């Protein structure tokens, strides 16, 4: 039953690039999407975030920016694969935290608007665009939605229910989201600094990403999804675990499912939001799982926190790292600011890597871990 799940194709659509390769080339040059934004429609005050420019996305009639980002990302990934969306063995999985919530800002609040905002409406529009036959699966589980999409896809493929899974995620930043994170005092007034002594909050970011998975042996030799796990802190709805024990449990369970030991993990793509509590909890969890010496990065300094897309974007960029043998740095990091040491990569470097671990955590006390390997 443990079919191998191969990564067939992927796409990252962000303010710094329209394809995975475009994005990776920008990151190799240390180019970040995070900058000071002056967007009165989102906030009366300037703020740091990674946002698409007006006009970056050509929105087709009847679709929203959120849906168009998903469509553009999925289209590019599909183009680089032989996967047929109209095949009954192909399932579409969509991850998002807030989908079309920005319509609350601009549209009259009617019953029709409520239906238009529903994620199932967006999923139907995206599915119909490509001709997917099966009803899409929609995951909305805070900031672990993207990693959960990959885990859900892996499981549906392993049971043989489907042969191919197209896992896509996106989120759009609006005043709704920005004001909420601001009310939590979770936003940094500068470019964020994951795991650093002076870290003072996160930056938000927009983006979409798609990863296509398949159990078809014609893809043997590709990078695989080896294991994944989800856990809950059962501690606080808006603050992470004090011990990191629950994220550590998800990491350990993923390792077990992957059939790997800690020595087999060559790098970690951390959630690393740069809030004081998240990074501290993650450092504790990584220590509990005995992975403290493994090189680790956070890509939040390049993309900001892209919410439902984050787990997908960061997994895909890390897959590219695995292919190119190049570990990306953690922009903003200079000096450790967590109580238990972790091996944060401050500079880009060549590595010989076979497997990596991706972690993420979010509101509601959720944690997720997934392992990819050659």
């Amino acid at each position, binding site marked *: 039953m443990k079919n191998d799940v191969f990564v067939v194709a992927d796409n990252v659509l962000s303010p710094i690039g329209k394809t995975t390769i475009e994005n990776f080339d920008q990151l190799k040059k240390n180019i970040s999407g995070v900058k000071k934004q002056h967007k009165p429609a989102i906030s009366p005050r300037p703020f740091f975030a990674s946002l698409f420019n007006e006009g970056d996305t050509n929105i087709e009639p009847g679709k929203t920016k959120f849906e168009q980002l998903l469509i553009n990302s999925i289209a590019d990934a599909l183009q680089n694969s032989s996967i047929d969306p109209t095949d009954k063995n192909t399932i579409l999985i969509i991850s998002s935290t807030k989908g079309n919530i920005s319509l609350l800002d601009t549209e009259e609040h009617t019953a029709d608007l409520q239906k238009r905002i529903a994620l199932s409406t967006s999923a139907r529009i995206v599915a119909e665009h490509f001709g997917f036959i099966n009803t899409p699966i929609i*995951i909305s*589980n805070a900031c672990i939605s993207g990693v959960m999409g990959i885990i859900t896809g892996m499981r549906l493929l392993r049971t043989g229910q489907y042969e191919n899974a197209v896992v896509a995620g996106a989120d759009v930043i609006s005043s709704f989201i920005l004001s*909420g994170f601001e*009310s939590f005092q979770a936003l940094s007034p500068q470019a964020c600094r994951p795991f650093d002594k002076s870290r003072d909050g996160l930056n938000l970011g927009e983006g979409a990403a798609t990863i296509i998975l398949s159990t078809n042996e014609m893809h043997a030799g590709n990078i695989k999804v080896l294991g994944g796990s989800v*856990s809950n802190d059962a501690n606080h709805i808006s603050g992470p675990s004090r011990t990191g024990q629950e994220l550590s449990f998800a990491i350990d369970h993923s390792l077990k499912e992957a059939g790997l030991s800690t020595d087999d993990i060559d790098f970690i793509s951390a959630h690393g939001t740069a809030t004081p509590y998240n990074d501290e909890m993650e450092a504790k969890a990584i220590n509990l799982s005995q992975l403290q010496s493994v090189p680790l990065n956070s890509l939040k300094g390049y993309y900001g926190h892209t919410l439902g897309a984050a787990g997908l974007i960061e997994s895909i960029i890390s897959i590219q790292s695995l292919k190119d043998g190049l570990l990306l740095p953690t922009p903003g990091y200079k000096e450790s600011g967590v109580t238990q040491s972790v091996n944060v990569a401050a500079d880009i470097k060549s590595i010989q890597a076979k497997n990596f671990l991706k972690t993420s955590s979010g509101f509601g006390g959720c944690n997720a871990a997934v392992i990819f390997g050659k």
Partner: protein
Amino acid sequence: MLAENHIIGSCVIERGTVFKDDSVLIENTGADLAEFLLSVYQHFPLNYPKFYKMDNLSKLGWLASEVLLKDSFQKDQYQPEEVGLVLANRNSSLDNDIKYFESAKDIASPSLFVYTLPNIVIGEICIRNNFKGEHGFYIQDQFDAGFIAGQVSYLLDNDILKACICGWVDVLDQEYKAALYLVEKNPADSSKPFSIKNINSIFETI
């Protein structure tokens, strides 16, 4: 494959009525949703001050989980990581999103913003019961018993979980419905096979 697991208990809350397994516990109070949820809380009675700060989606799901687990679940027989949740709904957290949106015109409230995610109800149930296992929140236009059954069975059959609470919790304005199922690997007195047919027939109880 599905019939290997068992529905140990269920709770359906809809149209002013609270159903546990085959019995009606509270019938049509006629009150609006917020008053109704409070009356259910007071009926049992439950002593959990955190209830008051929850949004209606979390209140509904949390109350349904309390009714579901009361006298039916021996949580001491499991480790925290062995119990999890798989929930779905149609309207995500839109009910509270609109309230947050209105409030944010004056001053954005973090205590409202935190409920602008549907999985917070899972977090509330986990905090109450110290459940730390696998969980997931899915959005569906209609309750998809087959999907829920597939997810839960995978978790139980692969020993990722030993007990799972699953089902539907949806609120939008005055429209609401909760249907929760406690599913375990071993049968108990009056348990039913965890089949799509049984899931749907309980869902349509009221």
